């Protein structure tokens, strides 16, 4: 049965409320933000309507270029590490009994829904001098003295991979759980070891899914805001941190908006790219 098209105006009534809400509270704020990105900043935290590219030109300075480069590099690294870890894990998970899968999914969702504040706090505790893993190493006689492992780049990376891992598993899960099991069986019958079957059959057959997932996780990692602050040094602050800093503490809404618009363009471009990869696999 093909669905009918709405005939009367009254048929549209039910969608008026959600459409209106999204228009008023998502499209309009978005538009205001874009407009402000072209406004002229006035000293003292205000701005006046204008149409200038000054806010965008500030990207070209070495400082913001550096932050931008660092943000993109860090997010790429997190995305690659998370996918490399999550892919074999998800593949194994999708092959477990149903109850085992459900248990892990509940655990992964619980970690995924955790506030960034809590993840940051948990890792800073794990990396601290008083309560951290180095105490364990001291107890085992592997280290002389407990040390603090943060703030550092490694701490930021660990925290962000931790945050991204459940997300990555859940993005990969549908594709891997729908994968034709006969593929592996065929490879095994032909004499391939489990590892060879995995690397020579499974991984290549999902190349586009893997690429699309890396991009999705990259965009997810770009949004990380508290972890670089809680676990890193100011040199490790990302674009998200800088946007908030400019908006709240420097009261420079036009510049914050310009950076946000730029981040939208990067994210949308990449999401479009990932949809393209995803589409090709289905075809």
């Amino acid at each position, binding site marked *: 049965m093909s669905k009918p098209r709405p005939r009367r105006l009254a*048929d549209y009534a039910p969608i008026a409320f959600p459409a209106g809400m999204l228009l008023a509270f998502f499209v309009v704020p978005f538009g205001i933000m874009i407009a402000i990105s072209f406004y002229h900043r006035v000293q003292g935290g205000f701005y006046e309507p204008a149409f200038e590219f000054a806010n965008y030109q500030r990207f070209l300075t070495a400082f913001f270029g550096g932050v931008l480069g660092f943000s993109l590099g860090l997010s790429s690294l997190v995305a690659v590490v998370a996918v490399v870890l999550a892919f074999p894990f998800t593949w194994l998970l999708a092959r477990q009994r149903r109850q085992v899968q459900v248990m892990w999914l509940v655990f992964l969702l619980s970690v995924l*829904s955790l506030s960034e504040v809590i993840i*940051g706090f948990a890792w800073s505790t794990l990396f601290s001098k008083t309560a951290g893993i180095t105490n364990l190493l001291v107890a085992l006689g592997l280290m002389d003295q407990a040390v603090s492992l943060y703030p550092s780049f490694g701490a930021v990376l660990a925290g962000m991979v931790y945050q991204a891992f459940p997300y990555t598993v859940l993005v990969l899960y549908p594709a891997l759980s729908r994968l034709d099991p006969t593929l592996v069986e065929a490879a095994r019958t032909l004499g391939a070891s489990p590892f060879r079957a995995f690397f020579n059959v499974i991984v290549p057959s999902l190349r586009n899914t893997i690429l699309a997932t890396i991009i999705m996780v990259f965009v997810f990692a770009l949004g990380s805001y508290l972890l670089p602050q809680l676990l890193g040094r100011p040199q490790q602050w990302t674009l998200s941190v800088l946007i908030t800093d400019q908006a709240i503490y420097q009261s420079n809404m036009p510049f914050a*908006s310009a950076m946000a618009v730029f981040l939208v363009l990067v994210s949308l471009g990449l999401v479009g790219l990932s949809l393209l990869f995803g589409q090709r696999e289905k075809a």
Partner: protein
Amino acid sequence: MSRWPARLVFGCFGLFLAAPLAVVAGVAVNEKKSLTFPPEGFSLAWFGEIFANPEWFSALLASVGVAAAASVLAVLIALPIAWFLWRWNAPFARIVQVLGLAPFILPPVITALGFLAFWSELGLYGEPWTVVISHGIFFVTLPLVTLTLGFDAIDSALVEAAATMGADEKTVLRTIVFPLIRPYIISGLAFAFVLSLNEYIVAYMVVGFTVETLPIKIFNALRYGYTPTMAAVSILFVAVAAAVFGLIARFGDLPRLLGAWSPRDE
């Protein structure tokens, strides 16, 4: 394939995911006001502190109130969209759907900044209720996804049979569609509720200086004076999330909700 490599992999990842939480749980039961691990002594007093200390308790109430109202709002927005797309062939409604999915795909700081600009322009910056609308919009995606799946799962033969036997649209909605959709409404509500409870940046940008939600309170405590109460709250949040998702799994089909084929489909 032998079982032990899989067990080893699951063990390692389990350790990786659980270690930070285990340390926080250990810190939460310290007897004195210090964040040491392994804990010195054992006391559940810091969990009591969440409810006894008016500052923490008011943050808890604020968070639960915002999350409850925002998740209901998110479902109220998502339900008509999902229903409309199921009922009618209306390409333009796809635009509304994409708008509903967008806030969740973009980095959250963008939505947060948009709201900050919007509420400031309206002169409403800092009004406590603005965070409810902001979260309601920000988390529309979750009920939208679960409800779209739910409507797709409705067997059209049921609806046709009811219509053939003379049921009008309202009766079909009430007696067939709604009961079938209810579990998806509940899981959408639950997803939005848990995530709103944990959300930091939108809340901080919109009402950060007027309302203290629990994540904001924990962040402030991280900066201005550590206390094991932070650890206790964190563990409480983990427990709430695990309980909510556990219930969804108990009464619904979690693998299907997350995109796997259910055995029933085969």
